């Protein structure tokens, strides 16, 4: 197992280098000139050239990528064009807020989604099942920005229960977390339901019932464990989506997270921040995938890497 994890970590590292390359070159393709953005429209030609040299933008593309990669391995992600503070500092200042929001959303989605999915599977075709399936259909097609605005309107403006912007205690977390969890919740309900339905049709479930095992254990011990691998996989994927998708929610709720930082960086052509942010989110997604694989191999031992004896 240890050997497997080390191997996987090496693969993760390679993936990260690959991602960094893609981010780097795609940003180069994007229109806009960072130097021009910094100096404004009335910049002189000399000023621009000087600034470009200072920022290293006059070097050839590949050599700039090499420098970037070299710095990256030393833990240096560059300096923000806007604030002139190190990217690592900017990320360290905003990432905890994003993590808090994503984890809260994920917890909501899992705590509600898995039991609801199980209930629907047990009572397939019942009224509950039909209502939930309809709700899921609506939830996956609602645009997050619209949902966020509606939630703010209802719970913050009309009812006045929760604050609508900023980060603070638990009360500040509620509305953005609920908004952000909606889509993942629907996906988790759907996956849990279909995975449970498939398992419940299996012979070994009938066989377990025929042994006189109490229905509660049939469902929560045997069926759920067998149904869990696809559910956990989708939860892992959704977690990555949440981290990356925090951009919209954070902007609507003025949540001081990485997503909002990146939106601002995109408008300002602040390449180092964009690269740093993308790398941070990719690193998290890749680690989550690794983590999911490890959990799944404990749930289903036949997924464990074969050990050489």
């Amino acid at each position, binding site marked *: 197992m240890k050997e497997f994890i080390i191997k996987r970590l090496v693969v993760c590292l390679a993936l990260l280098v690959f991602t960094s390359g893609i981010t780097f070159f795609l940003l180069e393709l994007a229109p806009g000139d960072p130097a021009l953005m910094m100096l404004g429209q009335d910049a002189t030609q000399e000023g621009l050239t000087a600034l470009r040299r200072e920022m290293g933008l006059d070097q050839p593309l590949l050599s700039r990528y090499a420098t970037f990669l070299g710095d990256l391995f030393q833990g240096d992600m560059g300096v923000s064009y806007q604030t002139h503070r190190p990217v690592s500092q900017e990320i360290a200042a905003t990432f905890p807020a994003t993590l808090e929001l994503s984890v809260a959303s994920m917890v909501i989605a899992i705590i509600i989604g898995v039991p609801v999915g199980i209930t629907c599977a047990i009572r397939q075709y019942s009224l509950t099942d039909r209502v939930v399936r309809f709700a899921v259909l609506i939830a996956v097609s609602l645009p997050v920005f619209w949902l966020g605005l509606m939630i703010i309107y209802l719970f913050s403006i009309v009812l006045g229960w929760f604050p609508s912007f900023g980060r603070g205690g638990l009360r500040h977390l509620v509305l953005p977390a609920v908004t952000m969890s909606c889509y993942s919740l629907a996906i988790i309900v759907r996956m849990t339901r279909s995975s449970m339905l498939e398992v419940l049709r299996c012979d070994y479930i009938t066989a377990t019932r025929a*042994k006189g095992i109490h229905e509660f254990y049939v469902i929560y011990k045997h069926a759920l464990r067998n149904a869990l691998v696809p559910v956990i996989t989708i939860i892992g994927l959704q977690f990555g989506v949440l981290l990356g998708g925090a951009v919209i929610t954070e902007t609507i709720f003025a949540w001081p997270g990485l997503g909002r930082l990146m939106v601002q960086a995109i408008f300002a052509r602040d390449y180092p921040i964009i690269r740093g942010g993308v790398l941070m989110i990719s690193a998290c997604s890749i680690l989550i995938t690794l983590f999911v694989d490890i959990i799944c191999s404990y749930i289903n031992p*036949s997924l464990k890497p074969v050990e050489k004896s």
Partner: protein
Amino acid sequence: MYVEKPQHNENDTLLCVRNLKTHIRSDAGEIRVVDGVDLQMKRGETVGIVGESGCGKSMTGLSILRLVPGPHGRIVSGEILFNGQDLASLDEKEMVRLRGNEIAMVFQDPMTSLDPLFAVGDQIGESMRFHQKLSRKEARNRAIELLKLVGVPSPELRIKDRPDQLSGGLRQRVMLASALSCKPSLVIADEPTTALDVTIQAQILELIKQLREETGTSFILISHDLGVIAENCQHVSVMYAGKIVESADVRELFDNPLHPYTTGLMESIPRIGVRKDRLEAIPGIVPNPLDLGEGCAFSPRCSCSEEHCEQKAPPLVEVCPGHEVRCWKYCNHL
């Protein structure tokens, strides 16, 4: 701690199924998968149910345990008297107490009827932990004993294996060990050897025979193979399209098969020493259970079918003591 089950005298009736009807609702209509089945067996006896695939054998077995697949399947009518108690009207809680404890079931495919994620030792011990409230350790020790009983080598090691680490034959032995764990008085074995190789098949049948003699457990042996039934049962019921079409003691049935379907099945058994260029399969296919007409369900495939066969279904009549058949040919005295 171990609750002794009530002892019954040797010759009394263990199971008596009367007019059992199980229907499954589908988009195209109500399927009568079990359509008025009667079964009767004494304690210690082994009864066979034989018929082609799809004739409702499994559903009969599942109905006895009240495990008809929901939400569309349900027992419509009938009595299932087990030790004189009607299972059809028992509440679910009592039914759970009875499953695995009084009546156990072995399923057709050992590859798919064991939970892939749990060690086989846990799965064997599970029903004992529920019914007899054994501790984890006691259940483990009993599981080892049971694996020894069903002839699994080095059971102390095997109990930790998951099903995918065992061969098909071993898995079916595990299923048998699990079924026998609570000393049930009846085991329903639904095609226990169909999914296995021929040599393994013979071994498992031999094992069932040996277990029957050692434990005195009654078996309902379900098979599509009359050969399997012939060697292992005292009594046979032949099933077609959800109905019992012929029922007799094994010797009587083989010496004197009456229903054209039974003779058809017999001609399709390969026999050592009898040269045949090809086995006679019964012509035609199992009818679609949705559009069974008013008449005898077998009449479209029957070589002796006459006009009235297609208009009215024949009743089950007792031709001689203990030998019943559902065919117009034998109803002339009515």
